[in-house]
């Protein structure tokens, strides 16, 4: 086989696979962009105009929504980074138990729990009330406060475990121990070595996850509906209301807003990088002055304590969520309710549960198959290995969902695909696939190629090598990827809402809908099931490979997802 043939096959496969993976994304973006400039043929609007910009800028609530969005996203991302790093420095490479449950819990469930925890009549105020002898809840606003503090808390509780996990994952190749020893032998305090030597290295390696956090915080909808202010809401929520509202004239400004949100995400990332440069410059000056940083310890310890507090709040939120779901009457300031299973009997959580599970299984299975196909194509030499593939696959995670989904919805509309189970699965696959692929790609690429060569030398063809060797060897990462996929699917709010056209009801959509209603017990019941589903998946994913390979010592080394 000559090189040109090989190159041609490679380019064709490359175009085919990338096209298949990203077609809905590009199509959705183009649709959104067209609508932003007034091109909405199905509504008889076929002129290109920039009128939507003015409509957007003059729309009620736009400017406060924009300000709220930028402030909450930037502050939440910055705080999450600082807290996660301080905690990372204090943990010494050890992974605390609460990381997995907090990571696995969908935003909506955690948001509901936090709301129950910090509300004026919530569990925290009850605790104060018990101490101070209050008989009624204080008259303050804690959930949905106009500054977005509750929303930022929700984001921080969710993102600190994520960033912590990323830091733990990239730590392995770094000689942290030696650098610490070297730094301390030069008279630096441990905290000084952490901040001046280790943090800059770790930071560079977790930059991409950090930008995912920033982009996510900018465009979050479910958590914002539960914990964020309503008037004005963050921009993504405002846009969603316009998209789904009764006034078709708002589609164009809403699309323009979605485009603006994308530009905003890109602009903030660029600003962030400029800030990074500035900080690096100042940091070098600080480092050259040669201080040994003996007072830095308190700084790290302080931030780490706050980080622990935030995570304790997260775990407590899940506890309070469970309590509300089994409460009958819960007068202030009692710390425990009168228990009853009434909510579980009354609330219709079974149907959304079955729908959520089915959507999760279908979209995760599809995403796994797709990921295996792409990685096999890579092994077969049809796809060149490299970071470009990761970048392409990450697009749906980096671009605000509100900018993609209305376009994808309008793309599916003429095919009669919207509002059904199939369309919703499709939408979920778009957002589940990146996570499943990333969970699988590293362990897959780390497989010892000589092991595969030995199998081929023993006469095993491509299919047998896949089924008998690669997939069993990767059972751990496959199970972990599946659990992650189920968790991501269960957490999908906006994609279910748009492609399900409001007719597909999952635990996440129901939990968000019930959060603003009067029936806390029903909301709590949905939230509990929503939290338990991914947790159960993670538990199985940890247990399964350990059980299957309990008599195979070399298979037990890195099974944890």
């Amino acid at each position: 086989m000559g090189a040109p043939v090989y190159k041609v096959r490679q380019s064709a496969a490359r175009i085919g696979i990338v096209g298949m993976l990203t077609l809905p994304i590009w199509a959705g973006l183009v649709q959104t962009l067209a609508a932003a400039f007034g091109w909405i043929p199905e509504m008889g609007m076929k002129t290109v105009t920039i009128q939507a910009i003015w409509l957007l800028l003059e729309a009620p609530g736009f400017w406060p929504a924009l300000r709220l969005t930028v402030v909450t996203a930037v502050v939440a991302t910055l705080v999450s980074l600082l807290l996660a790093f301080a905690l990372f420095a204090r943990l010494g490479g050890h992974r605390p138990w609460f990381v997995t449950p907090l990571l696995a819990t969908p935003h909506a469930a955690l948001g509901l729990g936090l709301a129950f925890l910090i509300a004026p009549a919530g569990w925290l105020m009850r605790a104060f009330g018990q101490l101070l002898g209050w008989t009624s809840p204080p008259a303050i606003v804690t959930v949905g406060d106009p500054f977005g503090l509750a929303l930022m808390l929700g984001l921080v509780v969710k993102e600190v475990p994520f960033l912590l996990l990323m830091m733990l994952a990239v730590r392995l190749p770094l000689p942290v121990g030696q650098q610490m020893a070297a730094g301390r032998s030069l008279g630096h305090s441990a905290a000084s070595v952490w901040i001046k030597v280790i943090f800059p290295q770790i930071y560079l390696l977790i930059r991409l996850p950090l930008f995912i956090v920033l982009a996510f915080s900018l465009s979050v909808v479910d958590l914002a509906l539960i914990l964020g202010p309503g008037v004005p809401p963050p921009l993504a929520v405002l846009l969603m209301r316009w998209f789904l509202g009764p006034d078709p004239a708002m589609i164009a400004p809403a699309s323009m807003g979605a485009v603006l949100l994308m530009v905003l995400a890109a602009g903030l990332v660029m600003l962030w990088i400029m800030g990074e440069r500035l900080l690096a410059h100042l940091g070098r000056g600080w480092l050259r002055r040669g201080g040994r940083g003996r007072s830095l310890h308190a700084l790290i310890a302080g931030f780490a304590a706050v980080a622990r507090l935030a995570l304790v709040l997260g775990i407590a939120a899940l506890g309070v969520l469970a309590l509300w779901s089994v409460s009958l009457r819960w007068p202030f300031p009692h710390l425990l309710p009168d228990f009853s299973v009434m909510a579980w009997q009354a609330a219709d959580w079974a149907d959304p549960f079955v729908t959520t599970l089915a959507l999760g299984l279908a979209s995760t299975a599809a995403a796994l198959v797709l990921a295996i196909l792409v990685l096999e194509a890579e092994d077969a030499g049809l796809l060149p290995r490299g970071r470009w593939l990761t970048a392409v696959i990450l697009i749906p995670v980096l671009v605000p969902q509100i900018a993609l989904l209305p376009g994808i919805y309008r793309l599916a509309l003429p095919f009669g695909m919207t509002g059904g189970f199939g369309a919703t699965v499709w939408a979920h696959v778009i957002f589940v696939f990146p996570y499943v692929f990333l969970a699988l790609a590293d362990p897959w690429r780390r497989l010892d190629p000589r092991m595969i060569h030995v199998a081929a030398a023993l006469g095993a063809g491509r299919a047998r090598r896949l089924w008998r060797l690669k997939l069993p060897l990767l059972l751990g990462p496959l199970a972990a990827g599946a659990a992650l996929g189920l968790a991501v699917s269960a957490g999908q709010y906006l994609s279910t809402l748009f492609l399900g056209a409001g007719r597909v009801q999952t635990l996440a959509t129901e939990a968000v809908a019930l959060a603003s209603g009067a029936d806390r017990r029903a909301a709590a019941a949905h939230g509990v099931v929503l939290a338990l589903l991914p947790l159960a998946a993670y538990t199985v994913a940890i247990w399964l490979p350990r059980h299957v390979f309990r008599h195979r010592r070399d298979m037990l080394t890195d099974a944890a997802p």
Partner: protein
Amino acid sequence: MLHLDRLSVSLPDTGPIFAPVSLVVQPGQVATVMGPSGVGKSTLLDAIGGHLAPGCRVHGDVRLGERSLLSLPAERRRIGLLFQDALLFPHLSVGDNLAFGLPARVKGRAARRTAVEVALAQAGLAGFHDRDPATLSGGQKVRAALMRTLLAEPRAVLLDEPFARLDAGLRADIRAFTFDHARQMGIPVLLVTHDAEDAQAAAGPVVELLAAEQFPSGFRR
């Protein structure tokens, strides 16, 4: 007979990485390729076995008997491969590792089990069928890996420094065991090593692998 005919390899972005090698290995003979580390000894074996990464190019020819192997995928070349880490499949029992390579024409559960048990006994591993490969000693692993290779009935065997990890006492034993079995099979064996003792024990032809840049281009054409 394994015949390397002016064999060299280009990686996707390089010219030939080592000077062309020509070598004939007769059935029952153990030939040795020596050379400093990094010269491309493993790449040479990959070229013979069909394991080169996509985009690499092979120059010259590899023949078994009269037939050129270059157009065949690795799984149809029937060239066994043995590495210094025995590379037993960690998810299978020792017995299933051997059964993996056993040709499909050995039919029936009992017959296949017997074939595996016989091979295990030959390697001094009787009763090891259900053992976890991770619990084997270094020497046991190499013997099990050799039996796995031979059960697949290869037409030639490539050894990539298979004794490098063993300590000196064990090394001679395992080496003799390996060479004896290969000679009994009456197939050509090609050993890659940088240990002169290995080459001596192999008692076959020895060729030195040289980096390509030490030769003017067109050398021996």
